[in-house]
C-alpha cells in the first residue's frame, strides 16, 4: 500500500495516525489554556475561535484516518487503543455535539459571568476523555478515559461556584460518580482476576473457555454485575439514575446541555466495548440484567416525568426513559446463543443513541436559547404561548418534542422502531409491548409541552426571546435535521450498521 521510499520513522508516524485526533485535541487544548490567559475580552472570541479550530482539526484528522483505514480495524500502543469505524463515527458525532454545545451556551454563560476559559478547556478535556473511551481496547484505557470525562464534568457542574444548588449537584454527582467508578473498577478487577488480562480482545478470547468452569464463572458473573452497575450509572439507567434529575436540574442549563449530550455517546461506546467486544460470550447473563434495567428505566423515567414542573428535571427523567429504550437494542443481540440478530440490534442501539443526542442537544439548546439575561427558562410555564411569541421557535421545539415522543415523521420514530424491532426479532414480544405502552405514557408529557406552547396564551411576565442569530440558525438546523432524518433515515442507519459490523 505505502510507497517503499518512506523512512521507518515516517512509517512509525503513519502507524499512529489513527490516534492523531486525540493528540491534536490534547495539544490544542493545552495551547488553548495558555492562549486564554492572554485573552482580555469578556466574550472570549479568540478562545472560541481556537476551540472551533481544534474541533475542526480533529474532525479532519478523524475523517482522514477514516478514509485511509476504511472498514479496517487498527490496534495501537500495544493494543491499548483501537481505531475502528464505530469509534470514528462516534467521535465525529461527539465533535458535532461539543461544537453545538459551545455555540448554544456561549451567550448564556456570558450573561451570567460564567464564560471563563475553564469552561472551554474542561469541555475539551471531557471530549478527550470521551474519545479515549470510544477507542479503548483495554480496561485500563477505558477507565482512564472515563475518569478524565467524569472529573471534567464534576467541575463543570460546579462552574457557578457561588450557587448553592450547583455546588450541591456537583457534590452529589461526584460522590455517586466516584462510587460508580469504584464499582466498575471492582468489576474489572474480578474479571482480570479470572482471565489474567486487561486487554478487552484477550478477555473476550478467555471468557468463552472460562465460563464453562463453574467456579471461574461465578467470579466472572460477580465481576459482570459490578461492571453493569458502573455502565448503568454512566448511562443514567434506573435503578442507578438517582443523580440524573438532581444534576440536570442543579447544573446551569448550559452545563446540563453538555452532560446530557455527548457523554451519552461515550457511555454507549463503553457499553459496547465492555459487553459486546469483551463479554459477548456471557450475553445470556448480562442481557437478563439489561432487561431489568431497561424496564425499570422506561417505567421510572416516563412515569416520574409526568409529575415534574421543571423542564430540566422532566428532560432528566426523559433521558432515563430513553436510555431504557436504547438498552432494548443492546439486550436483543443474542438469542439462545445465536448471534444472528447481533448487528441489527446493536446498530439499532447506536442509531438510537446518536438520534437521542441530537434531540437532547436541541431540547436543552432551546432552553438555553430562551433563557435571557437574569432569567432562566426552566419551569414548564415558561414555555407558555411560545407560538404567540415566536412561531419559529415553537415549531422547532414541536419537532423536538414529537421526535422525543417517537411520532413520525421524525427521527425519534425510527430510533424507536429499530430498537423495538430488535426486541421483536429476538422473540421478546412482551418486552416490546411493555416498551410501547411506556412510550405512550411518555407521549403525554411531551404533548404537554406542545400544549403549553401552542394552546396556551403567553404568561403576563413572559420575557423577550434573546436575539441571537448564530445559535438560532444552529438550533433550526438541529431541529430540521431530526425532521430530515425522519424522512431519510437510511444514511445514518447504514453507517451505524457498518460501524457495528466492523467491531
Amino acid at each position, binding site marked *: 500500500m505505502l510507497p517503499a521510499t518512506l523512512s521507518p520513522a515516517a512509517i512509525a508516524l503513519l502507524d499512529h495516525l489513527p490516534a492523531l485526533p486525540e493528540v491534536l485535541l490534547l495539544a490544542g487544548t493545552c495551547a488553548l489554556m495558555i492562549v486564554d490567559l492572554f485573552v482580555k475580552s469578556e466574550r472570549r472570541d479568540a478562545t472560541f475561535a481556537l476551540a472551533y479550530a481544534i474541533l475542526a482539526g480533529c474532525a479532519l484528522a478523524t475523517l482522514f484516518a477514516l478514509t485511509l483505514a476504511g472498514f479496517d480495524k487498527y490496534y495501537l500502543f500495544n493494543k491499548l487503543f483501537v481505531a475502528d469505524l464505530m469509534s470514528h463515527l462516534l467521535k465525529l458525532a461527539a465533535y458535532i455535539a461539543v461544537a453545538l454545545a459551545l455555540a448554544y451556551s456561549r451567550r448564556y454563560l456570558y450573561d451570567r459571568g460564567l464564560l471563563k476559559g475553564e469552561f472551554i478547556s474542561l469541555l475539551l478535556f471531557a471530549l478527550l476523555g470521551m474519545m479515549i473511551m470510544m477507542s479503548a481496547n483495554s480496561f485500563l484505557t477505558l477507565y482512564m478515559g472515563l475518569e478524565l470525562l467524569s472529573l471534567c464534568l464534576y467541575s463543570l457542574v460546579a462552574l457557578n461556584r457561588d450557587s448553592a444548588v450547583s455546588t450541591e449537584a456537583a457534590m452529589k454527582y461526584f460522590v455517586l460518580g466516584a462510587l460508580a467508578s469504584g464499582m466498575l473498577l471492582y468489576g474489572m478487577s474480578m474479571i482480570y482476576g479470572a482471565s489474567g488480562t486487561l486487554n478487552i480482545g484477550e478477555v473476550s478470547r478467555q471468557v468463552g473457555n472460562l465460563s464453562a468452569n463453574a467456579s471461574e464463572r461465578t467470579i466472572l458473573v460477580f465481576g459482570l454485575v459490578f461492571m453493569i452497575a458502573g455502565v448503568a450509572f454512566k448511562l443514567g439507567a434506573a435503578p442507578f439514575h438517582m443523580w440524573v434529575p438532581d444534576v440536570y436540574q442543579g447544573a446551569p442549563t448550559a452545563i446540563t446541555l453538555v452532560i446530557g449530550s455527548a457523554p451519552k455517546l461515550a457511555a454507549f461506546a463503553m457499553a459496547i466495548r465492555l459487553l459486546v467486544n469483551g463479554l459477548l460470550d456471557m450475553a445470556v447473563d448480562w442481557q437478563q440484567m439489561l432487561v431489568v434495567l431497561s424496564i425499570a428505566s422506561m417505567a421510572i423515567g416516563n412515569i416520574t416525568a409526568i409529575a415534574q414542573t421543571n423542564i430540566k428535571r422532566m428532560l432528566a427523567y426523559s433521558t432515563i426513559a430513553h436510555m431504557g429504550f436504547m438498552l432494548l437494542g443492546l439486550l436483543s443481540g443474542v438469542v439462545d446463543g445465536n448471534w444472528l440478530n447481533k448487528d441489527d440490534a446493536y446498530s439499532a442501539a447506536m442509531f438510537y443513541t446518536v438520534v437521542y443526542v441530537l434531540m437532547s442537544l436541541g431540547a436543552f439548546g432551546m432552553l438555553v436559547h430562551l433563557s435571557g439575561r437574569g432569567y432562566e427558562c426552566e419551569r414548564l410555564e415558561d414555555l407558555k404561548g411560545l*407560538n404567540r411569541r415566536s*412561531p419559529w421557535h415553537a415549531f422547532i421545539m414541536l419537532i423536538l418534542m414529537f421526535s422525543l415522543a417517537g411520532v413520525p415523521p421524525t427521527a425519534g420514530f425510527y430510533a424507536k422502531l429499530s430498537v423495538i424491532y430488535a426486541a*421483536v426479532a429476538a422473540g421478546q414480544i412482551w418486552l416490546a409491548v411493555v416498551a*410501547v405502552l411506556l412510550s405512550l405514557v411518555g407521549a403525554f408529557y411531551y404533548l404537554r409541552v406542545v400544549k403549553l406552547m401552542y394552546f396556551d396564551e403567553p404568561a403576563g411576565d413572559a420575557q423577550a426571546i434573546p436575539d441571537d442569530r448564530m445559535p438560532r440558525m444552529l438550533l433550526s438546523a438541529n431541529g430540521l435535521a431530526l425532521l430530515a432524518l425522519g424522512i431519510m*433515515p437510511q444514511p445514518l442507519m447504514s453507517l451505524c450498521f457498518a460501524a457495528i459490523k466492523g467491531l
Partner: protein
Amino acid sequence: MTHTVPLLSYAIWVPIVAALLVLAAGGDRNAPVQRWLALAGSITGFVVTIPLYLNFRLDVAGMQFVELAPWIQQFNIHYHLGVDGISLLFLMLNSFITILVVISGWSVIENRVGQYLASFLVLSGLLNGVFSALDAVLFYVFFEATLIPMFIIIGVWGGPNRVYAALKFFLYTLAGSLLMLIALLYLYGKSGGSFAILDWHQLPLPLEAQKWLFFGFLLAFAVKVPMWPVHTWLPDAHTEAPTGGSVVLAAILLKLGAYGLIRFSLPILPDASRDLAWFMIALSLVAVVYIGLVALVQNDMKKLIAYSSISHMGFVTLGFFVFNALGLEGALVQMISHGFVSAAMFLCVGVMYDRMHTRMISDYGGVVNTMPKFAALMMLFAMANSGLPATSGFVGEFMVILGAMKANFWIAFAAATTLIFGAAYTLWLYKRVIFGAVANEHVAGLKDLNGREFLVLGLLAAAVLWMGVYPLPFTEVMHASVNELLRHVALPKI
C-alpha cells in the same frame, strides 16, 4: 402498468407544498394572501386526483398507478404507492373535502390563519398518503403523522375544553396504533423481511398468530373507526374541534380505521377475521343500536352528530364482516356517503354556531323563519343522515342491510332499527332547531347563508343527491377490487 406521471405523489405532496407556501407567506397581516394560496393549493390538490379517476381501469382488481422506489434499505422499506377500487374514492373525497374546509374557514378563522390553513393542507396530503401507501411502514408513518396536525387544530382553534379533547384524541389513537406497530414488526419478521402489504396478503399464518395479530390491528383501527367501546374520544374531539376540524375528522379520519380493516385485517388475517366475525358483528350492532339511542338524548348538536357518526360507522364495520359483495360494497358506499353527509351536518352546525356561539339545541328554535335557504339545505342533509331513499345515505345502508340479510335475518333486523333511530334523532334535532316559533331574539336576528356558505353546502347537496340517485359512478370502480378481496378472504391461509 407504468404511468409516467406520478399522480399519487402529486396528490400527497401538492397540498403539503402548498402548506409550506402558506406558512412562508408570513403572519396574520398577510391573511388574505394565505387564504387564496390555500384555496389554490387545495383546488390543485383535487385536480390532480381527477386523472386518477378518469384513467382508472375498471377491469383491474389490483393496484394501479403504482410507484415504487427504495426508501430505507436497512429494513427493506419502500416508497410504494398505489390505489385500487377501494382506496381511489377516499383519495378524491379527501381532496374534495379539503377545498370545502378551506372555504368554510374563510372569514371565521381570524387568529393564526396561516397555521390553520397549513395544518389542514398538511393533513390532507398525509391522508392521501395513508390511502395510497402499500408499504406498511409508509402507511404507519402517514397514519401516525396525521395526529400532529389534528392535535394542533383541535388544541389551538377548538372550544373551551379543547386541551382535554386534544390530548384524549392523541393518546387514545397513539395507544391503538403503537400495538399495531408491534403487529407490523411481527409480520415483517414472519414474512422474511418484507413490509409490502401485498406480500403479506399471501403470507400463510397459523390461526393462533392470526388472532393475536387481529387484535393488534383491531385496537388501532377500532379506536379510529371508532367502534364501541373505544369511541369515547370522538364526542369530545368533535365537540371541541373547530368546524373544519370536525368536518375532516368525521368525513376522512374516521375512514382510516375502516380502511385499515379492509387493507390489513381482512386480507392478511382472513381466517381470524372469519373466526371472529361474530365478535365484530356484535360490536357493530351495539354501535348501531346503543349509540343510536345515546344520540337521541344529546343536548349538544355537535355531540349528537358525533354519536350519529359512530352509529353510522357501525354499519360500515357490519358490512365488512358479513362477507358478501353487497355488504362490503354497501359499507364502502356508506363510508363515502357518510363523508359527504357528516361533513355537511357539521358545516350546518358550524353555520349556526358562527352566528349564535352556542351548540345547545335548547338555544335554538324556529330558525327556518330567519334562514329559509339554510333550513332547506339542512333538511336535505338531515334526510340523508336518516337514510331517506334518493339520498346517498340510503344506498349504503340499504346495501348493508341486504348483505346482512343474506348472512342472518336477525342481524339484518337489528341493523335495520337504525332506520328508525337514525330518523328519530336526526329529524327530532331538525324539528327542535329549525321548526317551531322563533325561540329568542338572537334567532330572530339571524342572517341567512352568505355566498361562501351557500357554495359549500350546495356542492355537498349536489354530491349527496347525485350519489343517491345515480350511484353507479361510485360503485363501478369498486366492483373488481371488492370481488377480488372477497375471493381472497374466502381462501384459508393457515
